């Protein structure tokens, strides 16, 4: 209990200032007015945070609602949080210059800015742990990822509600944050329960007007987390998922492919997906070339282009690759499934394919719903 402190809401701006004074740029959730929804971008202060905004998520739909609440973190999650700040969706890896009959490789600057991310969730931190396993703990360390990862300060905020698409309770990754944070907040009606998880975090909060947390604060935070545990969607457990490899000829893959657009939005928003392609961008004069890395998707033809052939031509094979890698083949590679229950693949699928429902159907744990088409509110004015 001694490590639990209380930060009044009025002092949240002090926390942001303290992070900035420690040399970090502060990335936080803010409303994206052009496209709608929330995005993680640089913020100047609390005035940029989405105060009183609440998210309503369904398969294929994300809407914000204004409430009178003074809370800044009364939403479940956004289309992306940590991933693009460590694994850049597009970056230059090196440059090659042709001179004096030889080619010379020139490295690019890898000096990352100190970056603090405010408002990350339990599912995001669990996903970051998986990205670390891939980029940092494999045979080859990714120096581009590493440079940014080492400059990261993480201020987590426990969820106060689960979206309809959330299922972190069934993957064991949430709703409460347990590890991987520098500072952890529980947002309450008039302030924040605050814990520190690292020396860096402790130094940042050292001069804040922290108060002793009361029993009432603790109980309120616990009640919020408990409420988040009641989630509509439940991913099959480890034992069931271990049977996924036997379902490669399931008729369900064909049914999914009838709806799937093969657009790759699911893989782009997935906080654990790390697939990429590399491409050469020569200068027009042909004397130098830049080598770039783009985030790629198993829903693109390039992804399975091997020795002159595209191996996975159709959507059936591509969707099957996505689900079986994420929920089955990931286990021998990284010791656990590659899904942390954030539900982004389901919310951000333009046709609302429900990843959890499909996994249950493929494994014979649920019946296919009728009708097959996603429910959509037709009253909405579309342009």
């Amino acid at each position, binding site marked *: 209990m001694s490590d639990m402190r209380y930060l009044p809401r009025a002092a949240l701006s002090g926390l942001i200032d303290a992070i900035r004074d420690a040399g970090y740029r502060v990335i936080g959730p803010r409303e*994206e007015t*052009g*496209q*709608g*929804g*929330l*995005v993680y971008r640089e913020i100047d202060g609390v005035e940029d945070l989405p105060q009183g905004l609440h998210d309503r998520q369904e398969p*294929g*739909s*994300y*809407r914000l609602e204004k409430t009178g609440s003074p809370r800044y973190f009364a939403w479940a999650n956004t*289309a*992306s949080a940590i991933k*693009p700040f460590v694994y850049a*969706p*597009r970056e230059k890896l090196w440059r090659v210059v042709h001179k004096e009959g030889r080619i010379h490789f020139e490295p690019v600057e890898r000096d990352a800015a100190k970056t603090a991310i405010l408002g990350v969730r339990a599912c995001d931190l669990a996903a970051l742990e998986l990205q670390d396993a891939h980029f940092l703990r494999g045979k080859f360390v990714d120096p581009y990822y590493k440079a940014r990862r080492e400059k990261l300060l993480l201020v987590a905020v426990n969820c106060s509600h689960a979206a309809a698409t959330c299922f972190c309770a069934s993957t064991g990754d949430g709703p409460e944050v347990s590890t991987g944070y520098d500072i952890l907040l529980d947002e309450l009606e008039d302030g924040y329960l605050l814990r520190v998880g690292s020396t860096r975090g402790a130094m940042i909060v050292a001069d804040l007007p922290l108060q002793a947390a009361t029993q009432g604060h603790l109980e309120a935070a616990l009640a919020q987390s408990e409420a988040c545990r009641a989630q509509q969607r439940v991913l099959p457990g480890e034992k069931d998922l271990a049977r996924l490899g036997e379902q490669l000829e399931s008729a369900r893959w064909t049914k999914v*492919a*009838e*709806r*799937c*657009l*093969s*657009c*790759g*939005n699911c893989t*782009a*928003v997935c906080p654990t997906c790390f697939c990429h392609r590399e*491409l*050469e*961008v*020569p200068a*027009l*004069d*042909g004397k130098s070339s830049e080598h770039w890395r*783009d*985030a*790629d*998707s198993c829903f*693109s*033809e*390039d992804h399975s282009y091997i020795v002159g052939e595209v191996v996975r*031509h*159709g*959507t059936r094979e*591509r969707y099957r690759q996505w689900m079986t890698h994420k929920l089955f083949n990931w286990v021998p590679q990284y010791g656990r499934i590659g899904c942390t229950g954030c539900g982004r693949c389901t*919310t*951000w699928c*333009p*046709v*609302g394919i429900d990843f959890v429902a499909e996994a249950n159907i493929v494994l014979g744990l649920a019946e296919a719903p009728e009708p097959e*088409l*996603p429910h*959509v*509110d*037709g*009253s*909405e*004015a*579309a*342009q």
Partner: protein
Amino acid sequence: MSKPRVAIHKFASCSGCQLAFVNMGTELVELVKLVDLVHMAEVGHVLPDDAEMDIAFIEGSITTPHDVERLKSIREHSKFLITMGACATSGGIQALRNNADSAEWMRSVYARPEFIHSLSTSGAIANYVKVDFELWGCPVSVRQMLSTVRSFLFGVPPQIQREKVCQECKRRGNNCIMVTQGAACMGPVTRTGCGALCPSFGAPCYTCYGPAENINVGSFGRRLMGLGLTQEQVVRKFSSINNAAPAFSDAAKLFCSEPWMEE
């Protein structure tokens, strides 16, 4: 070694692709160091259609019998022929006429229609001659054009992506406007190349770069109807700049033909 000879030919089009070419800025200076730009009506270089070329870029669609003759002559005298933009690659917006009664239109507009020598269709270049490479877009992307020229100079196949606009949109960190607003964005069926320009400003994609690879027009069209579009509006969404690209004209036919949803 002499520089490769390059021509930019124009057929039925708005000249926007040639303008994109002229507007490329300092890279145009670099380009003319590498190739001889010997024919381009937009900047005043005009050679006959039977001049020998290493690379012929073609802008515009084929709409008259005379166009067909010119095109055949260009093909015979060019080592590589590359289409440039939506008109040359799929027939352009003017291919909407392909579904109309051309003779009737002529009679209704012109007092003496017998003076008009026009085909009844606006056709893609590939309908008439062999095309070595296609550059989509309305207008074409200068970046893609230059990388294509560079690839030909190296003697390697051009590397132009056929993935959906969504991939580029997500790399830019955009929220999907279909999901946040219920917008009828054509990104999930449209080929990349524009850098997800419209959705980055909150506006729905309208198919400038034509069909992407492996698209699912049935599911996508049904979703648009779920978002509130009528069947006719779905047909119109596919019947835009690249309406005559087979994947889009098939989609339009699909949603013309069947009742997809009960009222």
